């Protein structure tokens, strides 16, 4: 029986990112971003905002905020670490599967939570390109994701 006693539903990595989320926007922090992405709605229970600084088409720095569950917090935190330093193109092609892999997995019914940060990141890149007045070269390569938590199925996420 005792071997059940220390189990946690989430992997140690998820737990670490949930407990110590990286790159969150601090309350008093002044972060001059070049692109901003907002997805979700309070009505569906999750909301995500991502701010990016871009230099030479690379993500120089990133901050995020969320009203979301533990999985959303952990996956966005992980995503933020993975995204910093990537080119815009690489960042655009980060997938929820890559993020959950890096986390060592999420409980099955929580996979969809990793979509949120990923989607907000793309929205931020879109916003950056739009502000620059540039055409968005990535959009057509990426399947459209609908993020209403409940309508995103695991299969859809696998497909990403």
């Amino acid at each position, binding site marked *: 029986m005792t071997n059940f006693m220390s189990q946690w539903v989430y992997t140690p990595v998820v737990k670490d990112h949930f407990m110590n989320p990286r790159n*969150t926007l601090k309350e008093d922090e002044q972060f001059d971003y070049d692109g901003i992405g907002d997805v979700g709605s*309070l009505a569906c229970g*999750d909301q995500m905002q991502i701010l990016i600084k871009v230099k030479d088409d690379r993500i120089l720095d990133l901050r995020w*905020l969320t*009203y*979301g*569950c533990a999985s959303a917090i952990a996956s966005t935190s992980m995503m933020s670490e993975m995204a910093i330093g990537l080119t815009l193109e690489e960042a655009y092609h980060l997938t929820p599967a890559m993020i959950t892999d890096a986390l060592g997995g999420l409980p099955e019914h929580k996979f969809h939570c990793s979509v949120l940060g990923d989607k907000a990141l793309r929205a931020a890149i879109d916003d950056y390109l739009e502000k620059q007045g540039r055409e968005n070269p990535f959009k057509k390569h990426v399947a459209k994701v609908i993020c209403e*938590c409940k309508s995103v199925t695991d299969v859809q996420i696998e497909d990403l």
Partner: protein
Amino acid sequence: MEQNIIYLDNNATTAMHEDVIEAVHQSNMLYGNASSMHMAGRQAALAIEQSRQALASLIDEESSSIVFTSGASEANNTVFNIFKERIDLGSKRNRIVTTTIEHPSIIETVKYLRQLGYNVDECPVDSTGRVKMDVMNKLLGDDVALVSVMLGNNEIGTIQPVAEIARLAHQTGAFMHTDATQAIGKIPVSMRELGVDYLSLSAHKFYGPKGVGALVVKAKAPYAPLVHGGHQEGGKRAGTYNTASIVGMGVAASIAQRDLDMERKKLWKLREMLRVGILERISNVVVNGNQEHCLPGTLDVSFPHAEGESILLYLDMEGIMVSTGSACASGSLEPSYVLLASGVDIELAHGSIRFSFGRYNTEQDVAYVLEKLPPIIKRLREMSTR
């Protein structure tokens, strides 16, 4: 590494009382099939009848009214099935009236019945979760077969005026059911005084075993089994008697009856300490449910800009166990239907935390929560989209 374990999820389920554990353990000797005619069977049957009496005494009802089930979910389903069958057989009374904040075992049964075309009305509740009596009055008519209203709500603790609704229901000729699962052991529950025809309960909510409960049915109320088969329970519910668990429920019933006054006062005191403490320490907090007609050990609170599951898990890491919304492992973050039905804003309905006290909680537990909770809310609010 020693960790504090502070269990504040007693509305979800309780730990068994040590006397119950002992009784269950002892009754492993009563392994005979209580339907068997031989000695081992008769011994089991005797123990079961003693439990039936203890349970009957707790709810102030004849022991012959008790039908043992696997829990309150089955009991609730059984009641609705009785009336489904009567309606199928062409009864002119073909409408069921219930409320918007019943337990999922009723809410989902209602959805199922409606899909099949049955006529079920869910009476709305006010902002504190109390049934709107003016609407209820209008809903009651001579085509109503069954009225089902829970006694105490599992999530927000609001207590309904069941006796009054039972009177009205009977005036129109309907039968009355109450799901008393959360009320048993916390407030006095007398089936006679409530005047209901059916009452559901589940042992694990009052320090008894899981997987056992009862549907209490007045002698004159209609009945039809949900589980057909052997002659157990006078043909009302088939299945080999779950002797050990029934014995455990009987012991739990006796303890609940003995300790009711004490328990009630204690739970309310702890709950109030926590409520006041939270309001003192955390700004922008909404306490849900009715504060006057309230189960003594339930405190449901919304923290705007802090999401429920995250609060729950941060508390969990401190060893504090609570629940968010309805305690279902839904996986996705659904807002609490109970709060939505009470007209609570959707964001607040997302971020509610239920603290539910039990007999093993102490004032130290409350102090510990009051130490750990404020920084968690602060942190989540800082992280949250603004």
